[in-house]
């Protein structure tokens, strides 16, 4: 999968994602936003979305989460909702594409947590459902790299 975003000379990208794939991305982003809104912040699947701010000082990690957790989570939710709404467009300016990047990452982080991903791939049982999610994880990785290339002006890195 590639060629989902085509950089344009007027500072943005044409979105060339097929309609069916746009629907999957929009539905997943909206569903995840809804779930994050409703789930308690102690949900284990939040591990990568709200990581501990200290590995050696539990009190510091706890107070940091108390102070910042809601705001960070709200940002994740708003970003997902923006992607769900904007993925249907034909064109996305760089300023909005920059907002997609952390939202795409939230989707990847969530999938990686569900799949218990390590360097070699998922460590959960390779069911059909897990394979589908892992494929979607890979798809989002390509999309994120293409978005990065556009916001970085087509330069490497």
């Amino acid at each position, binding site marked *: 999968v590639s060629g989902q975003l085509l950089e344009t000379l007027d500072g943005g990208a044409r979105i060339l994602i097929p309609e069916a794939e746009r629907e999957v991305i929009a539905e997943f982003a909206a569903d995840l936003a809804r779930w994050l809104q409703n789930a308690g912040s102690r949900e284990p699947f939040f591990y990568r*979305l*709200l990581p501990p*701010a200290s590995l050696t000082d539990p009190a510091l990690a706890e107070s*940091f989460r108390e102070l910042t957790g809601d705001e*960070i989570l709200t940002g994740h939710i708003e970003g997902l909702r923006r992607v769900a709404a904007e993925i249907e467009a034909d064109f996305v300016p760089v300023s909005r594409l920059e907002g997609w990047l952390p939202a795409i*990452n939230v989707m990847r982080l969530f999938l990686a947590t569900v799949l218990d991903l390590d360097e070699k791939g998922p460590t959960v049982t390779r069911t059909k459902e897990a394979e589908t999610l892992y494929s979607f994880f890979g798809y989002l990785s390509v999309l*994120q790299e293409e978005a*990065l290339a556009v916001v*970085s002006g087509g330069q490497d*890195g």
Partner: protein
Amino acid sequence: VGVLPWSVVVWNDPVNLVNYVAWVFERVLGYDRPAARALTLRVHEDGKAVVAWGSREKAESDVKRLHAYGIWATLERMR
């Protein structure tokens, strides 16, 4: 005690892409592209790297902004 600054440590993980992490270091921490890239590779190869330091308030602000981008960062008091 309380005089030494705090450091911001970013940890390697198998999920975040190298190009994305480098972009976040540019955007959030203000590194230029080569420095951001070098720092990202250090995180990847060494498992972690100090990416910023300063007062506790500054370090907390940096960690919060990195978490907003999905980067696993921690605070450490320099001893």
